[in-house]
């Protein structure tokens, strides 16, 4: 119990004094996760829309596999990415291992199934609504996807924010491919793991509270930018 209180005080102190290490790893956490989110959304959202409007034989299996991939253990993804990016691996020459880029790659792989699955479900409902109308208007496949993505953007935002939540708290994969190198690839979650391992629970909790506060702030900011809950919009 004392640890929790201690943790909150630590968090408060770190933030108020703008501790330089904290600022550095927080910015790095944001950079890695937001970049991963942007890339993952660019892949997952159009894919989800395509999956919703296009009928093809393997569709049911594709959707099932996509849903199942949401349960992929992040550390397994990390190991697979490590094997590829390792100097002894096929992509070793790119020298990406133990860099933030490797962390971004791992996180993209982890959150694409999640974002795509959630987006697909809501886009499918929207499509069942729009189906007759858009076909009647002779909209092409690309135009249908565009209409779904634009009109369904609030649900897509939810999908993206779910992806953000998953990524910002992820620690297993980025530990393996990033190496938690001080001043290079250390982020909030890996720092928390480190402090926990050292037995410094107060510090670990402090960083944890900062992480939670940051996640809430990002979510609020995105909701504010998106004018959700304002008059007449849902």
């Amino acid at each position, binding site marked *: 119990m004392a640890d929790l209180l201690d943790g909150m005080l630590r968090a408060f102190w770190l933030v108020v004094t703008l501790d330089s290490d904290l600022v550095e790893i927080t*910015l790095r956490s*944001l*950079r890695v996760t*937001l*970049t991963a989110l942007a890339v993952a959304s660019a892949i997952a959202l159009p894919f989800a829309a395509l999956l919703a409007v296009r009928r093809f034989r393997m569709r049911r299996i594709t959707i099932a596999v996509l849903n199942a991939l949401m349960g992929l253990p992040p550390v397994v993804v990390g190991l697979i990415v490590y094997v590829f990016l*390792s*100097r*002894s*691996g096929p992509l*070793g020459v790119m*020298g990406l*291992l*133990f860099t*933030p880029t490797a962390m971004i790659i791992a996180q993209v792989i982890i959150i694409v199934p999640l974002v795509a699955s959630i987006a697909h479900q809501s886009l499918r409902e929207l499509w069942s609504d729009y189906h007759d109308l858009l076909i009647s208007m002779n909209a092409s496949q690309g135009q249908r996807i565009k209409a779904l993505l634009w009109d369904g953007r609030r649900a897509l935002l939810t999908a993206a924010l779910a992806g953000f939540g998953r990524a910002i708290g992820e620690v297993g994969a980025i530990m393996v491919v990033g*190496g*938690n*190198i*001080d001043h*290079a690839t250390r982020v909030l979650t890996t720092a928390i793991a*480190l402090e*926990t*391992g*050292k*037995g*410094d*629970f*107060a510090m670990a909790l402090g960083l944890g509270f900062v992480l939670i506060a940051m996640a809430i702030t990002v979510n609020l900011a995105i909701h504010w*930018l998106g004018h959700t809950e304002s008059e007449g919009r849902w």
Partner: protein
Amino acid sequence: MKQLLLGTITGLLLTGAAWADEMKLAVTTSFHNSGLAEILLPEIKADLDLDVQLLVVGTGQAIRLGEAGDVDAILVHSQKAEEKFLAGGNGTHRREIMYNDFVFIGPKSDVAGVAAAKDAASALQLIAEASAPFVSRGDDSGTHKKELSLWAAAGLDAAGFDSWYRAVGAGMGAALNTASGMEAYIMADRASWLNFGNKGNLELLFAGDPVLFNQYAYLPVNPEKHSHAKNDLAMKLEAWLTSDRAKELINAYKINGETLFVFNAKQ
């Protein structure tokens, strides 16, 4: 507003430029937990203008990273594993740098009476006879291998122990956390113990037997096997680690007034 956001994002993406030399060194969790790295790294940066990026992993993973050529050198404490590493052509040579010691930690109540043991072997025999809860690293690390060799030297087979012997498969800090939570005995390196923040009801019960001696060695990755390995920087670092300056810093490093490491590199 959108411009501001875009600008910030671009700024964040560009903060990656580095101007000093840099190399990657895999070190064990035991070494990192001692806190010695926080003393040495800034001095290395000042003296050699070299950024040493530490990957803090278990001995097994450090060896694997060295074999794969994902780091430029490794600093570990398991002679058998190091010799195997060299035999496989993965490293150029091994250079002893310093040693610290392992200690036995246990609950204040000390049900097995370890504090009064005359040497490490008898301490372990006492624990086994009392079937007192004992936490093992269980992760094939240098510390774990040392622990297993000590059980063997005491005439006991760790593989045949009952449930009082708990192999957690984790790093030193995590294992200490578990021991603290279960009030169990555990073998730790002195440095990690002194720096450990969650001691609870545990205390240092036994130390000093020469067999608990823990040698750290530095092995540069073989540039013939991995041409991109920064061997020149690795050698530069080795020269520094075996210099008088390093000797001074290592021998002077204390936690709560206790020295942890003894510099023993042949200069």
